[in-house]
């Protein structure tokens, strides 16, 4: 390594209306270094990187690449400077093939499809991703989309590669292959910035770790100098333990939901589940094992191809989410941005939109004062951090968006709650409070089904754990017999 750093960021500041997203952040990156950025949601990791990749323009500070001052004002300029970034949200063009997507923006004037495809195949093989380059992006599943995104970041031989949560939808073998490739490219002198919520991953792969909190760099050290506990403490500014089993309620209520031999094509095969009042059931399994599909069948989003559903012992057909709601079933989607929140509307509207009936006067007009009072009490009860009730939902961090959505769902007063990845992309502090909420819902007598890829979460909150593999329910553990290794064994088969 020579003396000039590959990248040097000094005093970088980025403001958004009402929020100081990044405040005087410093970051030094040597050639060939793998640098992990960790922090809670809304701590400014993504914003910092998007400033580097030209999506946002900084308000203050300086960026040097190989000792030269730069200020990329567009992703294109950042690319020319040797910075490529893999973004969190999907950035694929549905109508183009995987290989066209990966090469997008880097084509020669007259296309050479064959050569592009050969290169794409080579990258995908290196990553051990099973992905057909000639298939259209609209045909990909969530995990496959993420694979394409990663390949896209590696396609251009950049000096600096930024990966924002690359493993969020990947299975364990795929994550391993990705880590190997990251080590390989860094050995050739490419520097990698690795953003992740999975602290274990960051500790495993990175040479250096930078911890951000509220837009400020709170620590930057060699990875060896950190333990997982240190990182968590630095991220939240206090020590908490997320793997802490709550006391169980022995007495369960009567059965409210029973599903018999439900199938959905080959995605869900002959699944039978029963859910009782006052219990939290965890549904574990790998991504693509059919968990989300089963959850969607239960909440009426999609109709099963076979099987029957009983609510309170009566056979029902759930034709639509509205019908499911009428039967008392609520569904929290794993995609809060697309399916849950009205990003352009205010926090208050987002909180109260499902309960407006209760807040109207006799003419049918919404009583503004009562709505505000209700909204404020929800914000307090669920400790949602907002600039104000009038702020747009899109200005909130991921954790606070999720809390708002859960608050809205709970206020709608339904009996059967289905949570799909309730803490996906949510910071450590918010995870804790969401878990508490879920437990307290169960003790109020609601039946809760939690679909989660995050095993510690399943272990923490469930009274019972179901495991799915290839569309089938393969295991059913009680709280006493459940253990992480047993669940993993069942999930991998």
């Amino acid at each position, binding site marked *: 390594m020579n003396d000039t750093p590959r990248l040097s960021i000094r005093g970088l500041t980025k403001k958004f209306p009402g929020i100081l997203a990044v405040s005087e952040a410093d970051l030094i990156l040597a050639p060939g270094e793998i640098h992990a950025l960790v922090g809670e949601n809304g701590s400014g990791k993504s914003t910092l990187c998007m400033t580097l990749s030209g999506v946002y323009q900084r308000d203050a500070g300086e960026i040097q690449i190989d000792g030269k001052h730069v200020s990329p004002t567009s992703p294109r300029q950042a690319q020319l400077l040797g910075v490529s970034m893999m973004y969190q949200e999907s950035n*694929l063009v*549905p109508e*183009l093939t995987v290989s066209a997507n990966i090469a997008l923006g880097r084509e020669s004037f007259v296309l050479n499809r064959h050569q592009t495809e050969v290169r794409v195949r080579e990258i995908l093989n290196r990553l051990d991703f099973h992905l057909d380059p000639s298939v259209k992006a*609209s045909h*990909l*599943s969530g995990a496959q989309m993420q694979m394409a995104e990663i390949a896209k970041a590696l396609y251009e031989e950049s000096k600096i590669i930024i990966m924002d949560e690359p493993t969020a939808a990947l299975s364990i073998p795929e994550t391993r292959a990705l880590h190997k490739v990251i080590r390989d490219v860094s050995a050739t002198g490419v520097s990698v910035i690795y953003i992740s919520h999975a602290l274990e991953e960051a500790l495993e792969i990175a040479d250096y770790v930078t911890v951000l909190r509220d837009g400020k760099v709170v620590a930057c050290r060699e990875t060896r100098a950190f333990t997982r506990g240190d990182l968590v403490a630095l991220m939240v500014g206090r020590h908490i333990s997320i793997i802490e089993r709550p006391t169980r309620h022995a007495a369960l209520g009567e059965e409210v939901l029973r599903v018999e031999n439900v199938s959905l094509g080959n995605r869900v095969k002959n699944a039978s589940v029963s859910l009782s009042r006052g219990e939290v059931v965890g549904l574990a399994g790998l991504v693509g094992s059919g968990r989300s599909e089963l959850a969607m069948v239960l909440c009426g989003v999609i109709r099963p191809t076979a099987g029957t559903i009983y609510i309170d012992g009566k056979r029902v057909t759930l034709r639509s989410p509205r019908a499911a709601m009428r039967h008392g079933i609520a569904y929290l989607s794993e995609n809060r941005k697309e399916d849950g929140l009205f990003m352009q509307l205010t926090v208050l509207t987002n909180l109260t939109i499902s309960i407006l009936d209760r807040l109207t006067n006799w003419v049918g007009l919404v009583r503004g004062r009562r709505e505000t009072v209700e909204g404020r009490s929800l914000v307090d009860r669920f400790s949602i951090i907002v600039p104000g009730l009038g702020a747009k939902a899109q200005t909130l961090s991921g954790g606070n968006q999720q809390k708002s959505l859960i608050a809205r769902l709970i206020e709608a007063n339904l009996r059967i709650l289905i949570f799909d990845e309730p803490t996906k992309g949510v910071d450590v502090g918010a995870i804790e409070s969401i878990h508490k909420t879920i437990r307290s819902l169960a003790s109020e007598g609601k039946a809760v089904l939690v679909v989660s890829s995050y095993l510690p979460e399943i272990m923490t909150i469930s009274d019972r754990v179901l495991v799915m593999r290839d569309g089938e329910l393969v295991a059913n553990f009680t709280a006493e017999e459940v253990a992480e290794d047993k669940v993993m064994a069942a999930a991998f088969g």
Partner: protein
Amino acid sequence: MLHYLLRNQLLLILIGVFLYFHFSSPYFATGFNLITLGREGAELGIICIGVTLVLILGRLDISVGSVMAVSALIMIIGYKTLQIHWGYLLPICLVFGLLVGAFNGVLTAIIGVPSFIATLGTLIILRGLMQWASSTEWMREANSTFSTDPAFQFIGGGDVGSTIPLSVLLLALIFVAVLFILKFTKIGVSIYAFGGNFQAATRAGIRVKIIEVGVFTFSGLCAAIAGILLASRLDSVTYQTGQYLEFQVLIAVILGGTSIAGGVGSIWGTILGIGLIAILTNGMVMTATDRDVQDIVLALFLLFALFLDRIMHKLTHRAGAWKMADLDRALAFARRLTMRGGGA
């Protein structure tokens, strides 16, 4: 798959409509009429190619009819009233089209006006210009004489080798060029990417503003070329020239399978769409169908095509076994419905 079907069913409708007019009017399938049909189709077709590109971007250009009209106006008044040689007027018309197109492009891409509003503004300005011009002495003088230069008449009305209209050749030339650009160049991929996922295109380093201004400029140029052909073929222009043409253009392009939402579309489909519109319009004139009824028939064809498209889509997706991608798409669609259905 969908486009393949849509294109094929469009081809079937096209043949069916052709045969219908062939049997209901003895004048329809005559050589003379077919050449006229080709000429009308070519002018519409050149405009449609430009508009197809705008639609693939996910934008709209409704100013094309009036750009064509003003381009024809420049030709007619310049040549017949002001006695300027038409050879000088050609580049003037082309530059006019480029400028109006670039103006639309700058309004939408750089200033951020929605394209519908921007091109509506252009449309109204140019229509106003037409109205004003038609009340002047110039227009009366132009429309009371006939041009005598055979070379001028040849542009829009002449046949190369006395069989193929020059305008049809011009259409073919533009068609091939645009097909090549869309299929085989970076610009083509960029246009599809722009319409398919704008954010992805921006983040992939595509120069989105240049692409957008460029496509609008091209659309303006196409409309101006059509105006030149029209002026030469009809040898006159009125304030009604090209009025409501934008709707015919949109019908043809959408019939051809291009989505208004952007990211999807092909100029092959557009050519078939134009063919159908041209045959319908001409055939209804030949069978002496009432003018108002003609519009209704055109609109019904558009709705019918979209309806057929949905039906075919449903049938093909129900028939087979559940495929992963289909299910994923169904799920994605269902997820979107969750919110609208008043769910969580």
